[in-house]
């Protein structure tokens, strides 16, 4: 990538890494965040996402590599000289200052005397105009969070860094703040780099998501692209749920034909990120909502050309908008299927023999030389 391409307010990390003693928190990493984008670093705790963020902020010294901001090398600048601001995980509001002074802190440090108008405007933007003279401890979590955003945004940083800013909020407030943050970002047009372990949060808010695992970026792309075309088992399992079926390639062509679970499944060749030599091992992936269920008696009605897997329902749970089934089959012991509750087939109860079928175009292929369960443990369990 040349210098011209990264001009403006781009954040560019080149070979950045961080080690603590013998522990490597972030592997050498190259990353470009284009100006004006809402960029999310997504991963389980301990994957290096916060460390990466702190290296951009200057709060953590990079062991190797360079941090560029708008083409300028800022690697050795102390945090107070970097045109970036951070919204901290616990907000880190100054408890001895009222909301106005908290928000005005950055302006005052840069010698700006008449802060009133700007502070008022900023508090208006985050809808806290009435709280200007309160102390932080008199505010609720969501309000404190908005003060933290206002305090950072008022400085018009080239990049706003958000370190799990919604982690301390309850679910309902979190949803609300996600939309709020997205609105503010669109309004002010500043580059946002957002660190989160919540895949839903990352997908709702960000234009681009970088999925991190073990100090590495596993995959980077638009949320929909990551979801539809995961290139590693970690991404497939961490972003939503995937059914991964191990198989062996029996014929290659426009479509790959894979022998798996005693049957044959096909997938488009361009949806396979692994080498496609005949006889090679492959992991086939299919999202649970893309699969349809038919009772074994109706197997003949399934359109030709569909991928089919036969199995038996072992568990079903009614969620409301959908019903989630767990199906045991030769292809996998616990295949997940989400069926929309449009016309429920009353025969589909645990124990029923069923045929799973789906459009082959929805199948993706992954390299079989990976841990099939990587990223499958939910984040809540990992923490």
């Amino acid at each position, binding site marked *: 990538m040349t210098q011209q391409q990264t001009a403006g307010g781009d954040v560019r990390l080149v070979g950045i890494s961080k080690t603590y003693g013998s522990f490597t928190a972030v592997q050498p990493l190259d990353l470009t965040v284009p100006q004006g984008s809402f960029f999310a670093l997504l991963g389980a705790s301990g994957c290096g996402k916060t460390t990466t963020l702190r290296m951009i*902020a*200057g*709060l953590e010294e990079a062991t190797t590599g360079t941090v560029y901001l708008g083409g300028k090398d800022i690697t050795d600048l*102390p*945090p*107070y*000289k970097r045109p*970036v*601001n*951070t919204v*901290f995980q*616990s907000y*880190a*509001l*100054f*408890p*001895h200052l009222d909301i106005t002074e908290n928000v005005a*802190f*950055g302006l005052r*440090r*840069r010698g700006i005397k008449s802060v009133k108008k700007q502070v008022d405007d900023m508090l208006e933007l985050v809808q806290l105009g009435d709280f200007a003279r309160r*102390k932080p401890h008199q505010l609720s979590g969501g309000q404190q969070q908005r003060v933290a955003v206002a*305090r*950072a945004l008022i*400085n018009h940083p080239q990049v706003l860094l958000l370190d799990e800013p919604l982690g301390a909020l309850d679910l*309902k407030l979190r949803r609300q703040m996600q939309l709020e943050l997205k609105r503010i970002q669109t309004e002010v047009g500043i580059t946002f780099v957002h660190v989160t372990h919540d895949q839903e949060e990352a997908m709702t808010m960000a234009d681009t998501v970088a999925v991190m695992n073990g100090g590495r970026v596993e995959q980077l792309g638009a949320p929909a692209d990551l979801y539809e075309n995961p290139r590693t088992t970690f991404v497939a399992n961490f972003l939503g749920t995937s059914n991964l079926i191990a198989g062996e390639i029996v014929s290659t062509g426009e479509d790959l034909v894979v022998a798996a679970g005693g049957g044959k499944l096909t997938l488009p060749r361009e949806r396979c990120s692994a080498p496609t030599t005949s006889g090679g091992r492959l992991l086939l992936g299919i999202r649970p909502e893309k699969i349809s269920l038919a009772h074994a008696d109706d197997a003949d009605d399934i359109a030709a050309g569909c991928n089919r897997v036969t199995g038996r329902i072992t568990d079903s749970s009614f969620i409301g908008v959908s019903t989630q089934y767990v199906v045991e089959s030769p292809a996998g012991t616990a295949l997940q299927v989400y069926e929309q509750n449009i016309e429920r087939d009353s025969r589909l109860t645990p124990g029923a023999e069923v045929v799973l079928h789906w459009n082959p175009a929805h199948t993706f292929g992954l390299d079989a030389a990976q841990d099939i369960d990587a990223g499958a443990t939910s984040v809540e369990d990992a923490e």
Partner: protein
Amino acid sequence: MSLTEAPPAPPAQPEEPRKLTLRKPSTRKRLIPYWLLLPGILWLLVFFALPLVYQASTSVQTGSLEQGFEVTWHFQTYVDALRDYYPQFIRSLLYAGTATILCLLLGYPLAYLIAFKAGRWRNLVLVLVIAPFFTSFLIRTLAWKTILADGGAVVDVLNTLHVLDVTSWLGWTESNRVLATPMAVVCGLTYNFLPFMILPLYTSLERIDGRLHEAAGDLYATPATTFRKVTFPLSMPGVVSGTLLTFIPASGDYVNAELLGSTDTKMVGSVIQSQFLRVLDYPTAAALSFILMAIVLLMVTFYIRRSGTEDLV
């Protein structure tokens, strides 16, 4: 939540738990906190309030040890005491004030280091701070007599560096000795009360969330500004309690003045002690005590008001 409607509760249900919550806690249970307070209150009554009343009455008595003292509401004792011993009062406040400021200047950096930089050495350094308490107050002060002794290393060094020329010109020391001068007394006070400054400072510094420093740095504050605008204001509760814990006992101290000073450096504590134990003029001694108490109380009230730390704690 407002969208979900709770199904109407069966009418008989709410009655039961309500009875339970309305039942008064038994009298015995309500009294438990007061019973727990009792020993402390009794202690204060017997060993603080009663002696105070007794002292107050002594201060307005007249008479002598041989003929016995009698309450005559002789308030003139206060006037006389203040007139005769105001230099000692001023000296006490001056010495205690200087020692307090020195303690703050010495103690703050140390408390800061322990709180933020000591890492795993933190507990060890804290033990070292209170280590002097393992020795008696008197012995520690006597040790300073040796440290500052004429012809000792400290005096020699200060002499060679011509520091004593300056301090003697200022009236803090004599031209060739430190012992038995104001500086010796202030040194003793500073040394003896330093832990009382460090510990509260440490406690309040340690409570400051380290992320506030990061946040200040992130918001363009240089390390110096961060200290001025964030760390120091947030450590004010420690500064206030540390200075109080140093100043109040230091202003009433007499051991340092007795052991390290001379007749020219007598503090009001020495006067009270000698009035009580040597001159046996109990009324004057009691009056002096009350005057000192009043002065300290006034100063402390004013100080706490000014430093405005109420809503910090």
